[in-house]
């Protein structure tokens, strides 16, 4: 049998579930209800409510990405320095929540953060002020960081373990102290992992509507929620597709940037 035949199922998958839906998004996005060509659905991003949702989404996903990076880098460094038998245990603990359903994890946070939820009951018991962050942007950022942190840790961890120990020793040998060894050697060499991690956190954070629905209440609309509602509530597929195309542009810009920085494709962990 021809080896190319083996790729047929994938090719079918690709066409049926990626190419055709994409074409449909572009078709709906670039036409109005009568089927005539229009750019109105794209231009609709400029309306105050849509652009506000977009900027807010960009802001929250940027903040989440930065927090993830600040948390993930030290963690990845600690992991990469551990003995193999130790670190596999830590990695397991770290990966374990990911085996749980994404929705379930987020709903669990809802229960934890609620006004009379687990955390506040505990704080009340300790006579500490209540934590009122449910239905605020803080809760959304918390949910994003919690859900996407592993996607930042793994590529950074991967690129850190690839650094030859003797390269670090060589830097020390040439007179660099720990700080200079980190800034001039370790950080630049792990940059591909960092960039890959940024993409893998930023893109899903930008497009999510589940986290904002569950933890942000119905008051805070992210661009993901706006698009979702155009499809499920308003039933305006044309507008929803148009806004999706706009969002896609931001994602493509992010991807291109990461490709430019990560020429060798080293950081592609997953």
């Amino acid at each position: 049998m021809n080896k190319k035949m083996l790729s047929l199922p994938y090719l079918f998958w690709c066409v049926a579930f990626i190419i055709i839906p994409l074409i449909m998004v572009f078709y709906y996005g670039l036409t109005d209800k009568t089927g005539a060509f229009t750019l109105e659905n794209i231009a609709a991003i400029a309306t105050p409510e849509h652009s506000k949702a977009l900027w807010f989404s960009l802001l929250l996903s940027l903040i989440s990405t930065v927090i993830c990076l600040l948390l993930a880098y030290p963690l990845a460094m600690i992991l990469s320095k551990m003995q193999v038998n130790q670190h596999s245990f830590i990695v397991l603990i770290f990966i374990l929540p990911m085996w749980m359903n994404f929705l379930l994890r987020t709903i669990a946070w809802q229960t934890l953060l609620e006004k009379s939820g687990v955390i506040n009951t505990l704080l009340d018991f300790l006579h500490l002020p209540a934590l009122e962050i449910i239905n605020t942007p803080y809760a959304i950022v918390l949910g994003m960081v919690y859900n996407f942190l592993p996607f930042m840790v793994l590529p950074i961890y991967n690129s850190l373990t690839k650094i030859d120990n003797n390269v670090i020793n060589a830097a020390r040998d040439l007179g660099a102290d720990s700080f200079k060894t980190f800034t001039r050697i370790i950080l630049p060499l792990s940059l591909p992992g960092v960039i890959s991690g940024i993409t893998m956190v930023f893109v899903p954070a930008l497009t999510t509507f589940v986290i904002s629905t569950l933890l942000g209440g119905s008051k805070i609309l992210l661009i993901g929620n706006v698009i979702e509602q155009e499809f499920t509530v308003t039933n305006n597929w044309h507008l929803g597709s148009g806004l999706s195309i706009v969002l896609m542009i931001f994602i493509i810009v992010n991807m291109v940037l990461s490709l430019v920085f990560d020429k060798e494709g080293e950081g592609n962990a997953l």
Partner: protein
Amino acid sequence: MKNVLVNLEHISKSYDGQMILDDLNLYIRENEFLTLLGPSGCGKTTTLRILGGFEQPDTGRVVFEDKDITNLPANKRQLNTVFQKYALFTHMNIAENIAFGLKIKNKSKAYIDDKIKYALKLVNLDGYEKRMPDSLSGGQQQRIAIARAIVNEPKLLLLDEPLGALDLKLRQDMQYELIRLKNELGITFIYVTHDQEEALTMSDTIVVMNQGYIQQIGSPERIYNEPENAFVADFIGESNIIGATMITDRLVEILGARFACVDEGFGENKPVDVVIRPEDVELVKPEEGTISGVVSHIIFKGVHYEMEVQANGFEWLVHSTRMFPVGTSVGIKVDPFNIQIMNKPESEDEEATKLDE
């Protein structure tokens, strides 16, 4: 005698309960090319890493120019290391790699540029400033690693099997290159290798190590011609190591035949080991030899023939430019100077006896 630069005093080191170095004592003189030679796991690399500051000894002191540097971190030591697999900084070009140590020391740009030029000239890679390490061959990368180390003008250069990853021809070229560099720079070299030929070619002093102990310290000639025990004899070049009995001073009985030798002071009727290098075994007519045997095997090696001779129950390895076909009866003669007598190890552990200089 030149000044002592480094002194290792009573160094011990173990990993996970396994002894790597046991009470090692060694000094290195200024401007010496000293080689730590031994099979893998003998502790030679650990010794080097302790010198470099990448490893702390469990006990003992490292004294550098009369100062105790045992607890000094690697970045504060006045020495540099050339690592086994080059360990170049792949995100920097060649000039940046070489400049790394100098920039850390805040040298002026003009000084650094001069040094880069000088170092690249020294390792015969002028004009490579803007190249990236990945675009260089193994030999070139190794030379850059050396250049990166020597621009810092260390008093001591540590080399951890730097030629291990290179092919034979390149390795030989680099050996001469290293000797030249050492003579031009006047730096003390400590070189780690498991390759006995490399050690013999380059060193002023060879330290043969096994199982965490120093087996013998001496000049290449001394190590080769007068191995102190069977391990050294076996590790350095090919040899016939035969159990024998020292009858009296200057007379040894090997495989039932008495040979004249030059060694004294072993006592009478004492069991010993003798080492006879294959090129020192003379093949003569059967009646002229001290013992006689039959050629059992012969291979042409270019410079000489390698033959095996069965005589008195031992298979003698012989190198000779004269050819004796398989089946020829021959006599074996050995010049008294070429019989090296060694004390027999008293137990299994004695194989690794510490031999203080």
